[in-house]
């Protein structure tokens, strides 16, 4: 499916301006949240609001990065891909803020509590796993590293789908009942990724068939 006849292209100035805007909004919102939080202007419980906002926006940004490659294909345009690394890094920045809020302001650096919560709360474990994977992706997001890693880079970065699953599980699990907001996020993720999930499953299936035929 092609939406436009001509591929969309930006001038380098447009690209620069767009990137500046993304930086400004992403960092601006974080600065705003923390500033309002510190001055007690972030709702009845600033910690709760900050946890929710950083978490939910990490997920929103994650969804945006997952939207970029289909967008590039269907527009068509090479432009969305110029923004993917940047937004991907902001997923990590928001996840960092989320974790920092939890450790600094929710648990307030009570080390014994931090240790026991990480060990014994399944939804925290799942969230931490997603965070570690996100860290790996961020650390290998530089072009130099990417070139050096060759084929393994794509394999590692396919774990973004695992991260999506873990993150949504963390979100669902943190709620007291199932029928809440996360359900919509799961639906959206399945819609967004159905093609890619089918691709991965089919690929695995054919590989398995081939191996069986050989033996």
């Amino acid at each position, binding site marked *: 499916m092609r939406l436009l006849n001509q591929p969309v292209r930006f001038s380098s100035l447009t690209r620069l301006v767009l990137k500046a805007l993304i930086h400004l909004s992403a960092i601006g919102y974080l600065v705003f949240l923390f500033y309002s939080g510190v001055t007690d202007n972030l709702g009845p419980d*600033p910690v709760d609001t900050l946890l929710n*906002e950083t978490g939910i926006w990490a997920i929103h940004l994650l969804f945006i990065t997952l939207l970029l490659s289909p967008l590039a294909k269907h527009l068509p345009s090479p432009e969305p891909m110029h923004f993917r690394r940047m937004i991907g890094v902001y997923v990590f920045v928001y996840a960092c803020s989320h974790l920092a809020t939890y450790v600094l302001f929710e648990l307030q650096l009570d080390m014994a509590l931090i240790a026991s919560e990480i060990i014994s709360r399944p939804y925290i474990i799942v969230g931490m796993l997603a965070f570690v994977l996100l860290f790996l992706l961020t650390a290998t997001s530089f072009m130099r590293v990417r070139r050096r890693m060759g084929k393994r880079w794509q394999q590692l970065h396919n774990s973004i789908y695992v991260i999506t699953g873990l993150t949504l599980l963390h979100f669902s699990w943190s*709620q007291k009942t199932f029928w809440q907001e996360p359900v919509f996020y799961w639906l959206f993720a399945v819609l967004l990724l159905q093609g890619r999930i089918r691709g991965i499953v089919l690929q695995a299936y054919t590989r398995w068939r081939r191996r069986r035929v050989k033996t």
Partner: protein
Amino acid sequence: MPTPFKPSVKLTDNDVTDKNVYLNRRQLLKSMGFIGASSLLAKSAGAAGWFWEDEKKTDMFKTQPLSFSTPDAYQISETLTPQAKVTTYNNFYEFGTSKDAPAKNAQGLQTTPWTLKVDGLVENPLELDADDLTASFPLEERIYRLRCVEAWSMVVPWIGFELRALLKKAAPLSSAKYVAFETLYSPAQMPGQKSRFMGGGIDYPYVEGLRLDEAMHPLSMMAVGLYGETLPPQNGAPIRLVVPWKYGFKSIKSIVRIRLTDKQPPTTWNRLAANEYGFYANVNPRVSHPRWSQSSERRITTGGLLSRNRIDTQMFNGYREVASMYKDMDLSRFY
């Protein structure tokens, strides 16, 4: 002769937080002058929508001033949670699952007429109408700690009367062992009862229960107001239970029926997840919830992110006088 009941918490009331501190928060926002921040933020109004829409709305529920006494025994020196926080940070899934949803969605709740029935195993079944709720018993203000199972807490000046006064009027039969409570069921007014997504998928009406001795304890209170006025709907208008030594979900809101029974009544959260929420739900720092440690809590008062508001949770939320009711029970089993 029985000695009169003396609560363990007995201090003076002089730390009331100034309402103006809270009301000035918008000024701080305006003074920031962050370019484009407001338009950027408007999109994510969901959770942080608090600061954009608290201009006094004309269709706000009208609360009425109450007259009441303020017995010294129930004043405490801990900083109160500001009224604006008590009335905008609520779990009341009938009006939505987020903390700010009840304040937004409950303003249209009709509390007149209202009928509160007291029946079941009683000699003298009662029906109280809206006026009876505030007129049948002398009202008093009691400052109680409220400890939520989600590991946050508040300090709230409730106005109401002892549950035992109401129960005595109904005269429980000797066969009565438990007290069952029921919230209003009105899907037309309560969007959470109409839609599973709004109401978190729990079964309505919300029901709660106490053992009769718990219900007869002088600390157990029927609240009809807070901060000097009748309850706003998000806090459980026109009448709710307040049991300060138990997690907040036991303190059922907007009650229409109280029934004395001989069997332990079902309770909403226990029915939903028995491994997470027990019938007793006594505040207990030693028994953690699968999702939260209960050993400490964050006290919501004033002060932003940097205020160190995590405090140790006390057994029975500090109301140690209730301990004798549970002395032969394994509280890690009967959580």
